């Protein structure tokens, strides 16, 4: 077995572009999935059944099916059945956003439910509207409690972005696997891919631990 690691260095810019795509997908998905999660959580906690039921069905559906299948479904079914033509990137982003929104909504729901009832009662007694009570009193406290969980979700999302490679979005996983079949340096390319993911993910996992420790003692 002869190894030729120069092939990795040769394709460093392609791999860097793939890594940039992975980061871009992670950031964009989270930016969209936080408001999405808050919206879904608010719907699930609403007294109106008309809002509660669709939100519950949405969340259960996305939590109980694999993300890779959601990506396939969006990629093949949206154009053929609904005439929605999105780029691979937009399709991947859509599937990731809907999936992470469902998980975030559970996080926010738990966070909002953990704020004692007395707090919103007090806000209402002071003459706030129920929306004001939610926005000014409940939400800021809930956000602090959900931050560690969101950090964990962030790391999971960073890893899950690799699944959009199955629909040829040129993220790090797809780029490395393409280079593997083009250069035939299988071991070198796949090991480089794993190491780059490791180098990006390891600090994120450590920062998550740190956030968990810092927030643990609060309130």
């Amino acid at each position, binding site marked *: *077995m002869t190894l030729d690691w120069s092939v990795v260095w040769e394709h460093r810019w392609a791999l860097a572009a793939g890594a940039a795509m992975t980061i871009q997908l992670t950031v964009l998905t989270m930016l969209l999935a936080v408001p999405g999660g808050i919206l879904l959580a608010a719907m699930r906690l609403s007294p109106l059944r008309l809002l509660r039921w669709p939100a519950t069905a949405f969340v*259960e*559906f996305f*939590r*109980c*099916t*694999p*993300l*890779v*299948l*959601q990506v*396939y*479904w969006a990629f*093949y*079914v949206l154009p*053929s*059945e609904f005439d929605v033509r999105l780029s691979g990137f937009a399709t991947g982003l859509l599937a990731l956003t809907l999936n992470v929104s469902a998980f975030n909504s559970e996080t926010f729901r738990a966070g909002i439910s953990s704020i004692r009832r007395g707090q919103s009662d007090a806000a209402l007694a002071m003459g706030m509207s129920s929306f004001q009570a939610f926005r000014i009193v409940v939400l800021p406290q809930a956000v602090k409690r959900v931050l560690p969980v969101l950090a964990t979700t962030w*790391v999971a999302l960073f*890893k*899950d*972005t*690799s*699944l959009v*490679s*199955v629909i040829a979005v040129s993220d790090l*996983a797809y780029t490395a*696997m393409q280079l*593997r079949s083009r250069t035939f340096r*299988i*071991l070198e390319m*796949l*090991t480089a*891919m*794993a190491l780059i*993911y*490791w180098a*990006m*993910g*390891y600090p*994120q*996992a*450590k920062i998550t631990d740190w956030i968990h420790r810092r927030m643990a003692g609060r309130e």
Partner: protein
Amino acid sequence: MIESLEPVLDNLPFLWAGIETTLVVSALSVACSLVLGFAAGLGRCFGPAWLRLPLVFYIDSMRAIPVLVVIVWTFFAFPILFGLTMTPIVAAVGAISVHVAASIAEIVRAGVESIRQGQSWAGLALGMSHAQLLRKVILPQAVTRMLPSFGSAIIVTIKDSAIASVIAVPDVIRHAESVVAQTYRPFEVYSFAMLVFFAILFPVARVVDRLYLRIGHRGRS
């Protein structure tokens, strides 16, 4: 929308074979990752120092690398490195188990560490050996606390098994792909695959929710 259910119904035996593979891969991965994870978790808590450092490195690394990458590496790169070939199913079960075992190890550690120190002292004061202490005092309580998190890990494992389709494990997704290629009906076929996973995962998720409600708080001090 749904034109006819024929693409699914005509290929039902073929799709069913895929469902069986999915169930087998999931069950084997759950079993292997529990064994591996327990060993790694207990090793990290009670093992000698020379063992603890590599275990911490392994656990944190698996938190940083996507399971897809581990599966692909195990199937394509591992055989080159060690000169042995694996069937896709063996590679998938191995890779998923090694990946999920890291989170099981963390659950085990959190469970063991949640048992108050006073309990260990009391056990030792009664003349128990460390092994006895672990077996009779710590683990029975800790395992109860770990159960809900194990449930969540099992759900993750079943979902991860879907990713095995990228290395051509003939699971329900792989077989659905073949049927779509023949029938050009992605909507019916992929939706069927969705329903299959939902039918497997929804009951499991409900049981896990109940576990959290019923015994999640148990033994909390």
